[in-house]
């Protein structure tokens, strides 16, 4: 029999622990959606034009774009907005020279204009032969115009595969449609946006085939495997461990694993994870708000990636250019949990 005072103390401790866990999760989710990272859905890049600050926002709308959502007909919009971050005012008459690359290969290049500086380009991925652009054009320089109400559309074999897409953006004009900036004045921005790569796989749990879905928001996954004896998922992802690159980039690696439940894999109510053999369980978040599936998030913010990279470089694994994940069930009884009206979150044990 627990005395009422101790009961109250235990309850308070549980609430505090739960709130701490929940706030950390929320913080990570917020940072994932708005911290403008290499491998995320938006970036805010700093630059200048003379004595004016000229920051470029590149944003994918909606935020979640995966190979699966695109196959289902999603047509995401990419917004380019050049603005003075001191005043938050957009520049006017902005011409954007945009080059899009994937894996070092140029997919398209063209010039786009928006009189209000807020360019919107709609992406219509399809497997037709060539990339084509449709929309209105400026009368003098023949530049594509993409506004909020009438975005310019790019159709063709683009965003067909998941992974990182490299946008190189040079500002050609500001303030006037025909005031072309010379090379030394024209700011150039480099941005990487990510298309989530959806991998549908089957794992054998106690003799039963369980369909699982992994979405990689950083780069395409490969070498998926499942060790039935140890109940361990394994998958790899190309990754450049160069420390100076990581230091200079806004970066966030996010892998999402959807596992239907109940089964022996989900029974323990928690998960541990490693990257290249290093325990990263503190970066594992479990969303078990859906009674029919566990959604396991493996989220690596920049600071953790730097620490990992330092260790992996010292271990001599960096040259492989691979980030190798494992995920396996872990007893969750000792972890903090936050029950709420419609969701609960479990955090992995701190390592």
């Amino acid at each position: 029999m627990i005395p009422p005072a101790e009961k109250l103390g235990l309850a308070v401790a549980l609430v505090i622990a739960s709130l701490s866990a929940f706030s950390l999760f929320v913080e990570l989710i917020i940072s994932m959606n708005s911290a403008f990272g290499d491998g995320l859905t938006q970036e805010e890049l700093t630059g200048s034009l003379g004595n004016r600050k000229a920051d470029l926002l590149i944003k994918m709308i909606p935020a979640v774009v995966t190979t699966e959502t695109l196959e289902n007909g999603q047509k995401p919009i990419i917004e380019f907005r050049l603005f003075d971050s001191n005043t938050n005012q957009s520049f006017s008459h902005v011409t954007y020279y945009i080059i899009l690359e994937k894996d070092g290969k140029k997919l398209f290049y063209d010039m786009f204009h928006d009189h209000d500086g807020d360019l919107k380009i709609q992406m219509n991925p399809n497997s037709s032969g060539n990339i084509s652009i449709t929309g209105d054009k400026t009368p003098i320089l023949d530049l594509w115009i993409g506004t909020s109400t009438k975005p310019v559309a790019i159709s063709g074999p683009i965003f067909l595969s998941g992974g990182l897409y490299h946008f190189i953006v040079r500002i050609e004009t500001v303030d006037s449609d025909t005031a072309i900036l010379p090379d030394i004045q024209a700011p150039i921005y480099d941005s990487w946006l990510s298309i989530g790569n959806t991998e549908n796989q089957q794992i054998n749990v106690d003799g039963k085939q369980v369909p699982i879905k992994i979405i990689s928001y950083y780069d395409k996954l490969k070498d998926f495997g499942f060790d039935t004896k140890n109940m361990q998922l394994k998958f790899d992802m190309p990754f450049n461990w160069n420390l100076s690159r990581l230091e200079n980039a806004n970066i966030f690696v996010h892998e999402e694993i959807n596992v239907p439940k109940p089964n022996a894999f989900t029974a323990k109510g928690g998960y541990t994870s490693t990257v290249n053999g290093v325990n990263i369980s503190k970066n594992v978040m479990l969303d078990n708000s859906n009674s029919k599936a566990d959604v396991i998030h493996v989220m690596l913010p920049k600071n953790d990636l730097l620490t990992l990279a330092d260790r992996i470089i010292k271990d001599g694994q960096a040259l492989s250019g691979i980030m190798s994940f494992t995920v396996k069930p872990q007893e969750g009884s000792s972890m903090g949990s936050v029950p709420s009206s419609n969701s609960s979150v479990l955090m992995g044990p701190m390592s």
Partner: protein
Amino acid sequence: MILVVAPLLYPKIHLANAQNSINKTQIWLDKLNNIKVEFSHSPKNPITDTPTELKFDVLNLKTGDQLKNLSARVIILTSSNGEESFYKYTNVTAPAGNFSVSYIFPTDGVYKVLSKIESKDTSALTLASFPVFVSFQPVGAMNSNMMSQSFLIALLTGVTAAIVIAFFLIVIRKRRKEKKQNL
């Protein structure tokens, strides 16, 4: 007299210098695309109502080789009374890396020649902008080419001095004549 004449001439000398600086071959660099655009025109000093050939050479910035298989658009832009007007040449092709268009400037002043050039071989697009000074009087154009500022000043000084000397000689002669007549 020199003091009176020189300030009146100065703006014209200044204008001729500005004209000199923009009427020789101009270069536009595009380091992102590794492109150099050289722009020149013939005649070197364009005048109104006479055809001017606007010439573009598009080169690889590193090797200096001409880029092949180009398509371009050339726009001649001017603004007078606060209103911008333009003339455009579309679908200009340049298989060998150079191209030109001929244009008759209707009025004098400074024009802006814009070009949008696509290099299909290197999958690159570049915009370039060049000012062109167009004069109404061909004489002004001659001065800027043939005479340097110092030569012009020396010439003006010489002419003025000659006039002054001639003036004094005439006055002296007149006075001598008057003296002789009085005697």
